[in-house]
């Protein structure tokens, strides 16, 4: 049976309800909250500040450091706090996704620390984290070439679906896992991709379809980010 009706009754190209807020952490230089349905991420930006130890400094440009962390109560079964293999990987890919749009050449010898914490997880946490981090960077007054938006597109046994939930991520057909999860990011102006991961299997033709769906979804998410930043006085 093909996947035509979604578990939560959304349209195939419909996003989960989005909440976006800027300035949630007064202590940080910049902060933001981004939620897609039951997935909620908060990002805090500290810096630019001097990078110590000194040998890690780059005299030509600044350094971006991302710390992604899932809080122990973010999922049903408590997860062990601290750094895990998965969180290290996500920190690194988030860093690579954000580096091209931050104008690090203007901040030599400094570091920008981004702390992403997942308050509640229901699939697409790295996407929510990137969306929150982009808003927090803008709030921190870091010079940026453009904005970035991220979304997870799924292929449910061949049906392209936008912003998949945990339920859909575990979707099975005939007792076999049939869901493919494709997180991707698009830059707001140049529409370049800075992150593209794939968990599962998908034909090349379908992937192109998924990218088109991702581009549309990212445009919508960008509108929410823009609105939240402009509302901040």
């Amino acid at each position, binding site marked *: 049976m093909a996947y035509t009706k979604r578990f939560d009754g959304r349209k195939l190209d419909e996003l989960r309800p989005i909440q976006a807020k800027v300035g949630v952490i007064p202590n940080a*230089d*910049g902060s933001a909250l981004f939620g897609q349905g039951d997935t909620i991420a908060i990002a805090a930006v500290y*810096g*630019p*500040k*001097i990078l110590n130890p000194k040998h890690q400094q780059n*005299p030509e440009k600044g350094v971006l450091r991302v710390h992604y962390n899932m809080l122990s109560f973010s999922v049903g079964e408590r997860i062990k706090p601290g750094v895990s293999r998965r969180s290290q990987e996500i920190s690194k890919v988030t860093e690579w996704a954000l580096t091209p*749009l931050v*104008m690090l050449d203007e*901040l*030599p*010898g*400094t570091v920008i620390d981004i702390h992403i914490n997942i308050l509640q997880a229901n699939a697409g946490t790295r996407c929510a984290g990137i969306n929150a981090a982009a808003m927090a*960077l*803008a*709030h*921190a*007054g*870091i*010079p*940026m*070439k*453009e*904005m970035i938006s991220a979304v997870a597109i799924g292929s449910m046994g061949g049906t392209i679906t936008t912003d998949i939930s945990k339920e859909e991520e575990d979707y099975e057909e005939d007792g076999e896992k049939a869901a493919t999860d494709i997180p991707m990011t698009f*830059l*707001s*102006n*140049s529409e370049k991709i800075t992150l593209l991961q794939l968990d599962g299997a998908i034909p090349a033709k379908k992937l192109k379809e998924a990218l088109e769906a991702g581009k549309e979804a990212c445009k919508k998410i960008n509108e929410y*980010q*823009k609105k939240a*930043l*402009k509302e*901040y*006085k």
Partner: protein
Amino acid sequence: MTEKSKKEIVIPGEIIAKGDEFLPGDWTMKQGDNVVSTRLGVVEKSDKLIKVIPLSGVYIPRPGNTVIGEVKDIAVAGWMMDVGGPYSAFLPLRECPGFIETSEMENVYGIGDLLVTQIFNVGRTSVDLTMKSRERGALTKIKDGTIIKVNPHRVPRVIGKEGSMISLIKNATKTNITVGQNGIIWIKGDKIDDELFAERAIKFIVENTTADGLTEKVEKWLAENKEGGKK
């Protein structure tokens, strides 16, 4: 905040001008035919130049700024200071008035002391400070009073046009106020109540920077809260 601000807030990557009509100024860049903003801020157009005035972020030191900084370390021929911003600042011994013995440096400005100081040079990754000023007593060590911290991007509104706003508060609260461009403000009054009243007045301005007719609003606020501040 019911009053609508006329100023347009832009986000990074937002197109603020098309074609060759404007030249890109501060915090803007050219992307193809468009001029886009690179920071969260307010657009300001003047003649043929378009620029963005940032709304948030850390303090960016500029030469000539009067700032309030903390002594962090005593070096061989000067003091390492923290004035906010990404880079540490250096106050050389020769930029202090009078003759200071190297062994006496600790007694003049110790670690943790707050100084009202001026930036005289900004390098690529360094800031140089001075304690020498034409105005007598303007640059000094802070011994008593109240210190508050505000968003450095709101400082121009706290000072007002040619210091109009700050002198309004000074007269109403009977205090002496020194505003550092890095967002640190020193309030010195005869009574602690005056200082607290001035602090609340400054907080009021900071919260309402985007409002129109701010001076009238502040005058009204000062008149309304005067009794409350005295109690």
